[in-house]
């Protein structure tokens, strides 16, 4: 192990938990907005994350081959975001819109179906094999290591984790600005809190819906690219396996509350990683075989004890 002079907990458990939590948080933002404004659990969200990452890689590969540029993933993510938002619009128009007035189960089933369709398309187009996103091993950032070392601490953070956490902070701040200070943001919050009242005040729900897809799509692609940066590879199930913890995060934070989703994501990410810490004795507190169960258990407890979540969101 890298020597961390007593800071094992921080470096090997806490920070990884935060990083995982950031990715969950970004994905959960889109889910909670869709849940709150469009009133359904969008099961295709994970696939959009995954596709966003694949498209980003493709853009990087193409520009690399054609122009010899080595684009940073976060730069290549921007055109990818535009593309995925377009995909969201198309999917909404053809597969979700017909069910706006229908019982919820119809649109949830449609999103199940979209999940399969999108994932299969990616598998057909890009193949089922994994694709290397970034080669090699990311060593801890030397500058931070020396800095903290001289201060009698030891923080070991590879650059990619730094970027992920910083990126998440930036996105959350931007999101906060959007929701509190812009007209469309306030309209989104209005529709999420009380759709009938929002209609009465003359808010155009379709515009709000489009805004939801835009914000949700951007966060989803960001989450997907961050995930790809973290695991340094692409594969077709990477979105789906993040989906249920992201739902858990959204529910934990309160449906329709983006800040709640961020907090929920961080809590779940931390809980998952901290469950393997040897709190008692030498072995992990919870067998890592049950790691997936951590998010679900938190979610179920939340649903029973306080369905409105930490930030008192919608309860349907």
């Amino acid at each position, binding site marked *: *192990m*890298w020597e961390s002079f007593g800071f*094992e907990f921080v*470096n*090997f*458990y806490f920070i*990884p*938990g935060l*990083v*995982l939590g950031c*990715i969950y948080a970004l994905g959960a933002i889109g889910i909670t907005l869709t849940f709150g404004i469009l009133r359904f659990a969008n099961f295709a969200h994970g696939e959009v994350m995954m596709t966003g990452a694949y498209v980003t890689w493709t853009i990087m590969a193409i520009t690399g081959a054609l122009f010899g540029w080595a684009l940073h993933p976060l730069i290549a993510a921007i055109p990818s975001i535009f593309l995925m938002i377009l995909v969201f619009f198309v999917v909404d128009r053809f597969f979700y819109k017909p069910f706006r007035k229908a019982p919820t189960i119809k649109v949830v089933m449609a999103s199940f179906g979209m999940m399969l369709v999108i994932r299969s398309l990616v*598998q057909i187009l890009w193949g*089922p*094999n*994994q694709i*290397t996103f970034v*080669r*090699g*091993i*990311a*060593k*801890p950032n030397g500058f931070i290591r020396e800095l903290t070392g001289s201060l009698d601490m030891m923080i*070991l953070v*590879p650059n990619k984790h730094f970027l992920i956490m910083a990126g998440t902070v930036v996105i959350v701040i931007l999101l906060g600005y959007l929701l509190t200070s812009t007209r469309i943001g306030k309209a989104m919050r209005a529709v999420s809190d009380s759709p009938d009242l929002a209609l009465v005040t003359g808010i155009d729900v379709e515009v709000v819906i489009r805004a939801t897809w835009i914000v949700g799509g951007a966060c989803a692609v960001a989450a997907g690219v961050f*995930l790809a940066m*973290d*695991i*340094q*590879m692409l*594969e077709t*199930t*990477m979105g789906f*396996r*993040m989906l249920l913890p992201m739902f858990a995060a959204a529910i934990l934070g309160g449906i329709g509350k983006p800040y709640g989703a961020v907090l929920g994501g961080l809590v779940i990410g931390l809980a*998952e*990683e*901290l*469950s*393997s*810490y*040897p709190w008692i004795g*030498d*072995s*992990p507190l919870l*067998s*890592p*075989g*049950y*790691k*997936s169960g951590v998010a679900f258990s938190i979610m179920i407890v939340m649903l029973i004890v306080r369905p409105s979540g930490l930030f008192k969101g919608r309860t349907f």
Partner: protein
Amino acid sequence: MRKSIYSCIAALAVVSGANADVKVGNPMAMTGPIPDLVAPMALAVDLAEKHINEQGGMFASGEEYVIVRADSMCDPVASVDAVTKLINVSGVVGIVGPVCSGATIAQAESVAIPAGVVTLSVSASAPAISNMETGTDLMFRTAASDAYQGVALAELALANGLTDLSVSYANDDYNAGLAEVFAEHYAANGGKIHLNEAHEPNKASYRSEVATLGANTENLALFAYYGSGGITLMRNAMETAAFSTFLGADGMLAQEVIDQLGAENLGQATFTTSTSDESTHGYAMWKALATVAGLNPLGPFVPNSYDATFMMALAVEHAGSADRDLIATSLRAIANAPGEIILPGEWAKAKKILAAGGDIHYNGGSGPQDFDANGDVAGDFSASVVQDGAWVGKIIK
């Protein structure tokens, strides 16, 4: 609606109409949890099919040897359905496959054995398969049971001077079984296991379990599929230098591991797989064929897939007709001594010998492939390390 029913019937007729071929069923986990592992295996099966058809086909009439591929999805439900179709609709003479132990046992017990059809699995390694049958002899495999490889790996660990280690295994049928045999044998022979934990495949981060497992030791025995979390776990371990030495089995032996993690970081990684003694011609022959075809000769279960396909064809040729009841005896006859040695790719030679009524003994790229009473193969194992950016194996004696 009616039109689609008619076209379905037409499709069935087309599928079954071509009776002049020798059809062999090949259920593989094309979709499911390990598609990247299975894709080269499928290519190896196709390669064997190609060699056979190029060198004269089946029987004196030169009938085509046709591999009918189906998707078993590594899932008992899908494999039972796929093999039902292969046996009943496509009328195959034998089954080469499936890949996963669960799928193999399910389709064998549910469909193949009741129908009297031979199953020759390419990679199912569960010990339970050895004693599966009572009264029938229809279950064979070209991959050694975990009961052998786990022991070989434990002995390798001790021989390499790893007196203590931690074990982490992916909680699926292949890796969990291997880990259990390994841990038992390793501990019984003086090794110290600090922690032995399962992990869920396909997670995004294993950092915390790696940290806990690596707190007291430098060595990790890792049982996982590279594509289902194995690479991620190794990467997490290397990022924090939690472990310096890695040991594992087939599931991790892939070029992807080198491509993604970087050869420079894999200095202390050793992975085993079943193999032929390189000093025998079986492996050398296979390596040459695989290289020409662009396949990795050491890919997990890739040579086993080639061998199984080739052996099934040899068995049918030996039996003289596509009669399901004769295949089991013929399979034993061509795989075991006595007989003239046949190596991978030597179809024309084998055909000539069989036509003259002689006996053959196939030695494959993944081992001598001699079946014991249970239809299992023992065989040797090789330990591979990274040299010049590729895995290079050395047989374990």
